[in-house]
């Protein structure tokens, strides 16, 4: 029998705020253990949580960029379970009335457009960090009560590739909206995968497993692939599926059982009133949202006439897309700029492992450099070296050209002298050319370029040589 995989992802993202979700402790990363906690996030008796307005704004923005319906009324609940990363004995979450419902993300895999629906999106607080050591565990509550947005997708995903693509789209939308850094390696985006199998062509959903502990998109995809294979083997052996949680072991490349899944009971939070949002509030947040990656990419294709593949690379982050548009304003050949950004700029950024925001080559500098090529001051080949220099030093191309004496020699008189000298030194080649061996001209051009250390304007050299040899 043929089986298909049914995959539903649950994503947590840390939303960007200065202070925690219900108290004024700092959210800054990397502080000494337990230095950013207070009676509220420790859950000391009598402490009262008060919701951070920014948390609501960020969550509404997230809901909007994921095409969700933001609900007018939402409320908070206590999700009760016992684990030492939880100072209060419960986690504040939204179980009965989440902030938003019924969204979607459109993805494209193997040129096929697919829609992955989002069941709901809600606000909840993060828990503390446990460090397991020999015979004991250490607890740091700095992370406890940091604001999280949980996004629950419908089980619409059928393969690890679709899962990867979905995460990429989700991340770029959330980053565009400024909601979260969405960095899996640093834990500001976490993803659990629910995986089950069903006979191809049937509709029913079967018992799933939940896979945790993936810390990059690559590992999410690998873990899903492994889990599908494991379940297929298990079905073949006739084993009954059991609902449980499995942990991805990145070193061995396998998932191992962690624990049974017991639903945590939820009761409504009696200290936090409901969140009631009006149209005006939602509209004002909507108006703050930037153009989203998919729309922007389509506009780039239309407006700048660049290929779809270029547009998708250039809109992969808001900062890069902004950079590109700045450049296009200054220099009017969009495809030329796209090429420089995609080949040279992105290569250097990757090599130095930095983002476009830390790049020393400003749009003005890049535009100026390309203008120098157009004017014939430097050759396209030389520009590549000049660009690397610009990237290192942050200097303008014209400055580098001047300092290093790289300027292309387009001065006719200077070149005539070198051409004459070359002709004198190569009488045999000249003869060959005159006998009709056209290739000889190329050799002579090469000699002039060598003489000028590559700085001669090759077009001009060609012209001068042809004239002299007539």
């Amino acid at each position: 029998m043929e089986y298909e995989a049914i995959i539903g992802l649950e994503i947590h993202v840390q939303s960007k705020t200065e202070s925690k979700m219900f108290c004024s402790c700092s959210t800054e990363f990397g502080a000494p253990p337990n230095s950013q906690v207070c009676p509220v996030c420790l859950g000391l008796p009598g402490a009262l949580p008060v919701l951070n307005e920014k948390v609501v704004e960020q969550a509404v923005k997230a809901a909007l960029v994921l095409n969700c319906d933001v609900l007018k009324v939402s409320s908070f609940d206590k999700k009760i379970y016992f684990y030492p990363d939880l100072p209060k004995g419960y986690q504040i979450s939204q179980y009965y009335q989440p902030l938003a419902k019924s969204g979607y993300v459109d993805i494209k895999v193997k040129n096929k457009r697919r829609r992955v629906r989002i069941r709901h999106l809600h606000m909840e607080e993060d828990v503390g960090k446990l460090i397991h050591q020999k015979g004991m565990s250490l607890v740091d509550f700095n992370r406890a009560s940091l604001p999280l947005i949980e996004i629950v997708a419908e089980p619409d995903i059928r393969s690890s590739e679709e899962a990867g693509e979905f995460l990429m789209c989700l991340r770029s939308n959330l980053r565009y909206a400024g909601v979260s850094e969405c960095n899996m390696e640093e834990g500001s985006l976490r993803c659990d995968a629910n995986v089950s199998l069903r006979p191809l062509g049937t509709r029913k959903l079967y018992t799933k497993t939940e896979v945790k502990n993936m810390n990059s998109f690559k590992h999410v995809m690998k873990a899903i692939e492994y889990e599908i294979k494991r379940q297929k083997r298990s079905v073949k052996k006739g084993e009954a599926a059991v609902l449980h949680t499995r942990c991805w072991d990145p070193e061995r490349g396998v998932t191992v059982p962690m624990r049974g899944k017991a639903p945590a009971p939820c009761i409504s939070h009696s200290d936090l009133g409901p969140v009631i949002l009006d149209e005006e509030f939602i509209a004002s947040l909507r108006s703050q949202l930037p153009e989203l990656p998919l729309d922007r990419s389509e506009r780039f294709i239309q407006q700048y006439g660049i290929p779809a593949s270029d547009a998708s690379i250039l809109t992969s982050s808001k900062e890069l897309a902004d950079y590109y548009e700045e450049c296009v304003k200054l220099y009017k050949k969009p495809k030329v700029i796209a090429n420089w950004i995609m080949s040279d700029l992105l290569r250097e950024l990757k090599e130095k492992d930095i983002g476009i925001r830390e790049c020393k080559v400003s749009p003005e500098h890049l535009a100026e450099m390309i203008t120098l090529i157009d004017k014939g001051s430097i050759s396209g080949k030389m520009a590549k070296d000049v660009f690397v220099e610009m990237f290192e030093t942050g200097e303008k191309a014209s400055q580098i050209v001047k300092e290093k004496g790289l300027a292309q020699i387009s001065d006719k008189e200077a070149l005539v002298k070198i051409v004459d000298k070359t002709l004198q030194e190569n009488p045999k080649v000249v003869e060959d050319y005159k006998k009709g061996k056209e290739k000889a001209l190329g050799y002579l051009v090469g000699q002039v370029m060598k003489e000028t250390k590559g700085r001669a304007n090759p077009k001009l050299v060609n012209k001068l040589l042809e004239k002299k040899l007539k």
Partner: protein
Amino acid sequence: MKISKKDVEYVAKLAKLKLSEKEKEKFTKQLDQILKYVDKLNELDTEKVKPTSHVLPLKNVFREDKVGKSLEVEKVLENAPEKARGFFKVPKIID
């Protein structure tokens, strides 16, 4: 609602409590009585009453996103039964 011994064992397991057989019997009876008592509320007609989570008609009680002072680490750990290098120390728990 009838509480069974199995329910008590389940709750005890979640709460990480070890109960003797005698205690299980006792708590089964006690919990059952408590639930029966609370069950009386079901006799009320609440058909037209909206669920309440707060007794005051409050909504949107927000604070501004501003960082304030946190507790000193010494204060934070003051009541901790065990601590180490600024951390709370707990028995090793791997689930």
